[in-house]
Every structure is written in structure tokens, then in C-alpha cells.
């Protein structure tokens, strides 16, 4: 009898034979994610010389290596902020239903599907010294010599915006459509003008979504690699942290240092995300009345 009762109690908490169905998935996660991840962390503590923290010490002692953190933050933070900030007004304008919305959304989303390499190639052709942009500015006499917009900070920044914006836009659009449109109408009947309605009603309800969107676009931008090499200045102003990790692991063959840099990268990302989510928890995060 006690056996039956125990089984019953477990089943009520969701513990029953169906749990075995989780096994294949769990095995995959262990084999393909947890083990390599733990292996990498382990590797970072086993440098050829310098003791357990040797690799970390080597990274932070060398300004050339250490500065990759600020370089990467200098690219990814502004790019993520711009992506979120630019998405809000556009998504806000597009929150209702109108003719051609699907077409416009598709156009805005295409860059995601193109991939970084194609975007980089386009940027080189368009913004490069002999590209259309510079030629147009030269021909109308606005500038005397081509503006350098590729193979430096700005090339990578544009690339991050082009690939990150659609992502941020789609997320924010879906957060916005989760806010009940009658809330703004109610605010209007209470005397709130357009800006007040946005500022007092929609923005506070949207803010938690903005924080989440910011975290995701930031993480995407922080791990930038291809565009930093292709349209950036990988030896100088856009020597981002992923380049440093690649360099250490596959050019110097110091796997331990490579792993250590990867761990530092993860810790910096986590720190930024933790700060943002900490701020988010101060906001109202309950129901927003819409279809969610």
C-alpha cells in the first residue's frame, strides 16, 4: 500500500515513467554542450606554465590582450543600444494593422537571413573608398576625399547594426503587440496626448521587453568575429576579444590561453546581462493585458 501511495505522490509532482523520455535529450545536452564547456573551462586552468591561473594572468598582464575587452564593449554596447533605440519608434509606428505590413516586415528582416559575410561584402562595396556612397558625396562636392567607413571601427559598427537591428525590431514588435491597445485609448480619453500615452503607458509596459532585447542583441554583438575581420581593422581598432581567443588558440596554439579568453568573454557578457536584468527586476513585469 505504501508503495502505491509513494508512486501516486511522485506522480503528482510530475515524477513518473514519462521522465525516461527526457533521457536522449539529456544525453545530447551532456555530450554536446556540458562536457565541451566544462572541458574548455578545465583547459583554461591548465596552462603550460604559470600555475593554475597562469593563462588568466597572461591575458590581464598584457595590455594588448586586456584592451580587447574595452574594444569589444566599445563596439557591442553602442550597437546594442542603437539597435534597441531605433527599433522602438519603428515598431511603435508599425504596431497596428495596415496594408503592406508583411512586406515591410520582410524587408526589415532580410538582413538576418543574409549572414554576416554577405553583409560585409555589401558594406565594402557600398561604403568603401570607391563605393557608391563616397562617389555620391564626392560628385555633389560635399567632401574632397573619400571618407573612411570600412576597415575600421565604423565598418564593424554598421555591420553589427545591419545584422542586429532586424533581430531587435522583431522582438520589440512582438512585445508591443502583447500590450493591450485599449490601454492607450483609455489614456487618450483621460486626456493624455500622444507623447504622454507612449511615455506613461506603453514605455513602462515595454521596458522589461526592451531589457531582454538589449541583452540578446548585446550578446550577439559581443561575440562578433567575421565582420570584425572582414570590414574591420582586426589588428588595431577592432581587435575584438573573439579575435584574441582565435589568435591564441589557432595561431599560437596556446589552447589554455584561448580557453581562458573565452571564459573571460563569457564572464563579461554575464556581468552586463546581470546588471541589465537586475535593473529589469525593478520594473513592472506582470501582465500587459494583450495577447502576450
Amino acid at each position, binding site marked *: 500500500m505504501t508503495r502505491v501511495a509513494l508512486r501516486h505522490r511522485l506522480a503528482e509532482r510530475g515524477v513518473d515513467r514519462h521522465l525516461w523520455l527526457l533521457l536522449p535529450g539529456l544525453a545530447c545536452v551532456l555530450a554536446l554542450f556540458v562536457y565541451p564547456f566544462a572541458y574548455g573551462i578545465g583547459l583554461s586552468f591548465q596552462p603550460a606554465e604559470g600555475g593554475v591561473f597562469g593563462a588568466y594572468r597572461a591575458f590581464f598582464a598584457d595590455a594588448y590582450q586586456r584592451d580587447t575587452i574595452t574594444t569589444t564593449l566599445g563596439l557591442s554596447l553602442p550597437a546594442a543600444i542603437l539597435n534597441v533605440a531605433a527599433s522602438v519608434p519603428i515598431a511603435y509606428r508599425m504596431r497596428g494593422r495596415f496594408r503592406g505590413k508583411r512586406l515591410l516586415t520582410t524587408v526589415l528582416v532580410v538582413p538576418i537571413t543574409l549572414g554576416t559575410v554577405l553583409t560585409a561584402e555589401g558594406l565594402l562595396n557600398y561604403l568603401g573608398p570607391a563605393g557608391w556612397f563616397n562617389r555620391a558625396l564626392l560628385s555633389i562636392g560635399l567632401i574632397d576625399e573619400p571618407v573612411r567607413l570600412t576597415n575600421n571601427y565604423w565598418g564593424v559598427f554598421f555591420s553589427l547594426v545591419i545584422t542586429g537591428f532586424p533581430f531587435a525590431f522583431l522582438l520589440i514588435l512582438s512585445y508591443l503587440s502583447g500590450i493591450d491597445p485599449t490601454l492607450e*485609448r483609455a489614456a*487618450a480619453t*483621460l486626456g493624455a496626448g500622444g507623447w504622454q500615452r507612449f511615455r506613461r*503607458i506603453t514605455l513602462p509596459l515595454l521596458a522589461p521587453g526592451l531589457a531582454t532585447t538589449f541583452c540578446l542583441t548585446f550578446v550577439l554583438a559581443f561575440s562578433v568575429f567575421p565582420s570584425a575581420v572582414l570590414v574591420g581593422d582586426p589588428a588595431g581598432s577592432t581587435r575584438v576579444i573573439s579575435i584574441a581567443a582565435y589568435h591564441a588558440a589557432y595561431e599560437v596554439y596556446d589552447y589554455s590561453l584561448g580557453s581562458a579568453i573565452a571564459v573571460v568573454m563569457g564572464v563579461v557578457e554575464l556581468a552586463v546581462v546581470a546588471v541589465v536584468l537586475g535593473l529589469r527586476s525593478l520594473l513592472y513585469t506582470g501582465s500587459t493585458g494583450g495577447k502576450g
Partner: protein
Amino acid sequence: MTGFDELRLDGVRRRFGDRDALAGLSLTIRRGEFLALLGPSGCGKSTALNCLAGLLPLSEGSIWQDGARLDTLPPERRGFGMVFQNYALFPHLSVRRNIAFGLQMRRLPRDEVRRRTEEAIRLVRLEEHAAKLPGQLSGGQQQRVAIARAVVLEPSLVLMDEPLSNLDAKLRLEMRTEIRRLHQTLGLTTVYVTHDQEEALSLADRLVVLRDGRVEQIGTPQDLHERPANRHVADFMGYRNLLPMKVKAVHGAVVAVEGVGLTLEGTAVGPLAPGDDVVVGIRPEDLHVGEQGTPVTVEVVEYQGRELAVEARTSGGAAVHLRAAARPTPGDQVTVTAAPARVLIFPAAAP
């Protein structure tokens, strides 16, 4: 209170695509009155309310507040209060801040905002809940917040869009009394949209019955209840028996009709001549089981507390609804009669 003497809707029309949701509504709302817009779903009553509030632009026509044109103003400059069907409370603001919102938008001094907010909270008896978020309140409490938020501004007109439809039956009755009480004590002018004829009859001073975007009848609750202008209004006013029959004879106001196995006398609504096709409207409570009359066969009997609701079938095959005091058995034959004054005869051809 920034009141008006009358608010005039002049041929207000609203089109959605090629369909008229509201086909030329002309109506005058007087200060202090409680007006109900009544009709089945899709009749245009909510459209009319949204046009009044300024949430929907008009396709044609105009709205005038005394001498001033109103329909060109955005909703935030009309100064009307609105109670939404889903309440539309701001989920991130406490009850107190929800109610204070409109006052803050008017840039009133902080002391006045606080005083009037607390007054409104007291008015709807939510003192204990003032610091809670709307999500922590029950449906009836949310409803009261929505009403307080609308009336705290002392609006010249309060618009209510089916405010009771999300509440259960008991609470609906309580809130109905509450709304009428507020209307009277605050001296509000109210336009109330509902599909519930009982609600409209009990609350309103004047009713507007709409169908397919058109006005079917405007009148006091008594007018509509006793003298519906046509069979659609009758259908809405509880004339559950609407039987297709033919005129046999006309004796002044009293008309004899027969058809579907029944012979009755009734009161004509509109001109009729012998041989005309008509629709005969009788309330179930006016169709009595009596000694003499037309025999019908009882089919379904429902217990309804003080009396029994009976569905019976005539020899002509039509279903009739009536009330009975004693419990008949399904299959019984009973004879039914109705007082001619309680039987309304509408021309069938009329719209």
C-alpha cells in the same frame, strides 16, 4: 463641471470597408440624462460610442456640443470619461495612480489631485485596495476602479461600453444599482452601450434601439416595453413569440388574425387590411392557459421558481412559449388565450 446643455449627433456615419457599421445616426443627448444604446452584437452601438469618444473618426456627419463642433477634436481634448468593456486599467499603476492619471494629465496642483483621488476611491469604496495593482483585484473591484477613473475628472459625458458584461449575474445586479446611484449622486450625463435589454430598461431614462447601424426606435423604457415600433424591437423587448399569421378581420384598433393553428385578437401596430401577412408578437407571460382558446400540445416544461416556462406546439406546427402556474406534463393538450391589448400585430412587409 464643464457641462453642456445638449450634445447633438448629426447624421453620424461610419463605414468599415464597404459596410456601414453606423448608417446615419442623429440623436440629441440632454444634460443629466442616462441614455442607453441597445442592440444585438454588430448593430453599431459600440461604433457609435467610439465615434463619440473620438476613438474612431467619422466617415460622414458631425457631432456638436451646444454650438461647438466636436468630431474634429482628438479624444484627449473632448473631456469625456469612458469605461471600457475590459476595463483597460493600467496594469503597472496602483489603483490610486490609475485613478489619479487623468487628473495628472490635466496638470492640476498636487494637493487637488490627491484630494480628488481619495474622494473617488471613497466613492467606489476601495479604500483598502488603493495601493494594489489592478491584477490583484477581483472583476467587480476592477470595474469600480474603471468607473472611478472615468468620473474623477467630472466629465461632461460618461461613456460606458458594456461595462457589466464580464461580471457574474449577482455582481452584475449590484454594479447596475451602483452605476445608477453614481449617475444620480454625481449628476452625470451617461451614454451606456449594452446588448442586455433588462439592463438598458432598468438603467436608462431613454433608450435607442439599433439594428444594422440604423435606429429602430428611440423612447423611454415604458415606450419600448409596451409599444415596440416593429417586430425587431419587439423581439428585443421580450416578445418571444413572433408568429407569422394573416389578418382575418379589422374592427377599429382590434384585429383578428389566424394562422399556424391559432386564432387570436390583437392590437395593430401600423395600418392593416384583411388578408395582409403579419407578424404577431406575444410575451410568454401574456399567453395564458385558460378554459377556452386554442388547443396546443405541451412539449417542454422548465421550472423557473415562481412559475413554469412551457414550450408548446400549435396544430399548425409553430412553437409557442408561455408561462403556467400548475405543472403540465409533456404531451398534454392545453388551451391558450391572450388579452387583445397584449397581442401586437406588426405588418410582415415592414423592415
